């Protein structure tokens, strides 16, 4: 059944249609929840909360946006709620002189493609992105990692398009620089 028909059937209380919708998006939601929270258990909690919200509020979904965009927004909202409750410390990334430092333009050509099998690299990636505030992290992950458009990212994060672009380029520069520092250790 095509997605629009599944949504209509699920809205009308068809459990099989709801199950199909959950199955269609569970991996996407889980992986995005993991990427934003950097923790498999937290990702599972966020995924469950996201689908609870979907089931509860599907009748309000007006199909003006894609279902996937709507789900990404719910994941971001649940993650932001968690982050506010846990009040982690994040690094401010407002200083362009520090972000775009020529001296940090080292060559990454020798980094092997299979490096992700290395636990140390995964730790570096986790540590770097955990320093980004949730607002920067959401924009980077939605736009660059999930491949959403600037407009969709703005819609999900409730930011203007210039604000998305500004956060995106700062997040990219910060992550690149922080990972670069770790590679040089």
């Amino acid at each position, binding site marked *: 059944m095509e997605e629009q028909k599944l949504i209509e059937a699920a809205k009308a209380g068809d459990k099989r249609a709801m199950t199909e919708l959950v199955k269609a998006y569970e991996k996407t939601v889980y*992986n995005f929840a993991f990427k934003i929270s950097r923790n498999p258990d937290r990702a*599972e909690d966020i*995924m*469950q909360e996201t*689908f609870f919200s979907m089931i509860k509020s599907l009748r309000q979904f007006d199909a003006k946006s894609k279902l996937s965009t709507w789900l990404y927004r719910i994941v971001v909202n649940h993650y932001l709620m968690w982050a506010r409750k846990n009040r982690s410390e994040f690094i401010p990334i407002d200083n362009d002189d520090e972000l*775009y430092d*020529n001296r940090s333009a080292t060559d990454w050509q020798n980094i092997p493609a299979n490096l992700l099998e290395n636990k140390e690299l995964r730790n570096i*990636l986790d540590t770097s992105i955990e320093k980004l505030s949730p607002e920067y992290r959401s924009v980077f992950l939605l*736009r660059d990692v999930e491949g959403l458009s600037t407009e969709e990212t703005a819609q999900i994060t409730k930011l203007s398009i210039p604000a998305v672009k500004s956060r995106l380029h700062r997040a990219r520069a910060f992550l*690149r620089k922080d990972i670069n520092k770790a590679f040089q250790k």
Partner: protein
Amino acid sequence: MNKKILCKDVMSHICESLGEDFDSPKCIAIKEHLVACPDCIKYFKSVEKTIELYKKYNCEFSVEVHNRLMDSLGLDDTIT
């Protein structure tokens, strides 16, 4: 006045414009600089690599995680 483009400008613009429209006059000037500047080429490639690493770093979605999700939502995916 024809202002000289600095590496810092290029790096900022690469970060701002990766995946965006590359046809603006500023972009064309940036591309010309990029071709001839080894530091900026390295920088550009490392930004691309950063994105690639985060894209590829996923967490396994196990059957157990799926089953717990179905249980928690009161859904049964064994009914066809």
